[in-house]
């Protein structure tokens, strides 16, 4: 039987295409166009300059460190929320989304104040000789904060759906908790963990607001790539800004492809029947 066609397609699709073209596609195309108009030699010179390279290095390394921390913390947090019953569990569950709800500039000044050498955390840490604010550690803290929810929210539903019979089978065979976790639970969580990790990493690479307050922003040591693109703009060096922004855009596309792949895998492993 031929499906009845619902009304409204021309209007709905028309609005959608106009909006997407003006708001999303046009600016990104203009950016690519501007970067492309540089010519390969100039483009390469700008994006491979020492200062740009140093910014890629600090951005990627800090994002990796933040993601590894969030992987462990996020998995533990999801585990505690799903497996244990304790007073305030619902509150903690709601608070997990705070980093998404709190504007990045607000998070930035709050974290900087906490970790400055006279701050609540900064003062005791500086007695131990650890400096967080205005060092790469500060960048890691800001990146971790803004991407905590990703891993918790991808792992949590998978843990909730986990069939207890799988663990019981291990227990009746006399396996230890650790070996059941490593051998049974962890492999089932892996697709969700990878999806969460790629989302968290991608967000950390592009984060700006929370980082610039705490980073110190010294060229070659604590200057992230997003800030370099911004600084080139303030220096009216528009071609350089376009080139660096285009590198970030390309990275975002690659991360989007990886994330989609990971999420498709996570879905394949979790949807039953």
């Amino acid at each position, binding site marked *: 039987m031929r499906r009845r066609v619902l009304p409204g397609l021309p209007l709905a699709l028309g609005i959608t295409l106009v909006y997407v073209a003006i708001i999303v596609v046009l600016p990104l195309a203009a950016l690519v166009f501007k970067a492309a108009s540089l010519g390969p030699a100039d483009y390469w010179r700008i994006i491979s300059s020492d200062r740009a390279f140093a910014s890629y290095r600090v951005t990627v390394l800090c994002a990796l460190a933040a993601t590894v921390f969030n992987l462990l913390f996020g998995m533990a947090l999801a585990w505690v929320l799903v497996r244990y019953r304790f007073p305030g569990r619902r509150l903690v569950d709601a608070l997990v989304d705070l980093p998404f709800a*709190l504007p990045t500039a607000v998070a930035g000044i709050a974290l900087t104040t906490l970790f400055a050498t006279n701050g609540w955390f900064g003062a005791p840490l500086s007695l131990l000789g650890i400096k967080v604010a205005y060092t790469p550690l500060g960048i890691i803290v800001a990146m971790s904060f803004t991407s905590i929810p990703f891993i918790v929210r991808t792992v949590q539903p998978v843990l909730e759906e986990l069939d207890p019979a799988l663990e019981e089978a291990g227990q009746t065979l006399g396996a230890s908790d650790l070996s059941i976790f490593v051998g049974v639970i962890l492999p089932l969580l892996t697709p969700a963990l990878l999806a969460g990790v790629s989302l968290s990493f991608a967000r950390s690479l592009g984060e700006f607001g929370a980082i610039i307050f705490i980073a110190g922003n010294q060229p070659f040591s604590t200057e992230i790539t997003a800030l370099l693109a911004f600084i080139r703009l303030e220096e009216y060096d528009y071609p350089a800004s376009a080139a660096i922004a285009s590198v970030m855009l390309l990275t975002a596309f690659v991360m989007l492809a990886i994330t989609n792949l990971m999420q498709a895998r996570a879905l394949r492993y979790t949807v039953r029947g």
Partner: protein
Amino acid sequence: MVHARKGKPPRVGDNIVFRRSLLGIVLVLVALMIVAPLVVIAVEAFSRGAVYFAESIADPDTRHAILLTVITALIAVPINTAFGVAAAWAITKHDFRGKRLLTVIIELPFSVSPIVAGVAYLFVYGLQGLFGPVLQSMEIKILFALPGIVLASMFVTAPFVARELIPLMQAQGRDLEEAATSLGASGWRTFFSVTLPNIKWALLYGVVLCNSRVMGEFGAVSVVSGNIRGQTNTLPLHIELLYHDYNAAGSFAAASILACLAIVTLVVKVALERQGAGRVQRPAALAGADSIIPETKP
């Protein structure tokens, strides 16, 4: 009192020592990483007393920043909502070529750094951009003015409403709408009496998250606004300005407004999730997705 599920056999990780230590570590980290930033905002905002706090909020520049932020949201959020509903209707209730590509493009802003978005807008409407010279000759100001701020905000929040609606409307299928139109209802009537009641919570959920992001957006807006004090400074930009002026108490007073907005957003979010909104996003929830469809009245 910490206990595992009552009356059920112990599961992996239910060992009491392990359970208490893991819970302890996690709760301490939550307190340090998530609760402490909220507390420090409140403490710093009132560090020079309640009078100074009130004066900071009542400052003309701060009031102007609040007003500009609210105006931006009042323009960007409704347009975004209309787009999100239209996109979800087209994608889930119809078949056409390129649907997959369209979905990817709608979600794109979620992956693009706000700074990249801001820079990109400069190359459309800036003097060195595509339309810059034309706009200048016509004396239309988009960048460093309200239109630029609104456009940049619409870019970063483009996916917010659509991505809440699309999975839900996909799961609900087209049967009800097909029944309504076959009984002679118009497209609009079908939408308002059949579709809208089924998606209202998810729609509100998307709108609330969209609004929260528009009001808090910093990176993209800081590129296109020009940071003119008392003119194009939105609240997040004003917070940065005060902070760099060494007026920490004033900066945190302004920040406390956005922190309150974040808390309200979280409370509304939890309430809407109880109504079933937001859950389709979670991969595993897809398996039982039909359970989130509100019962349809006979």
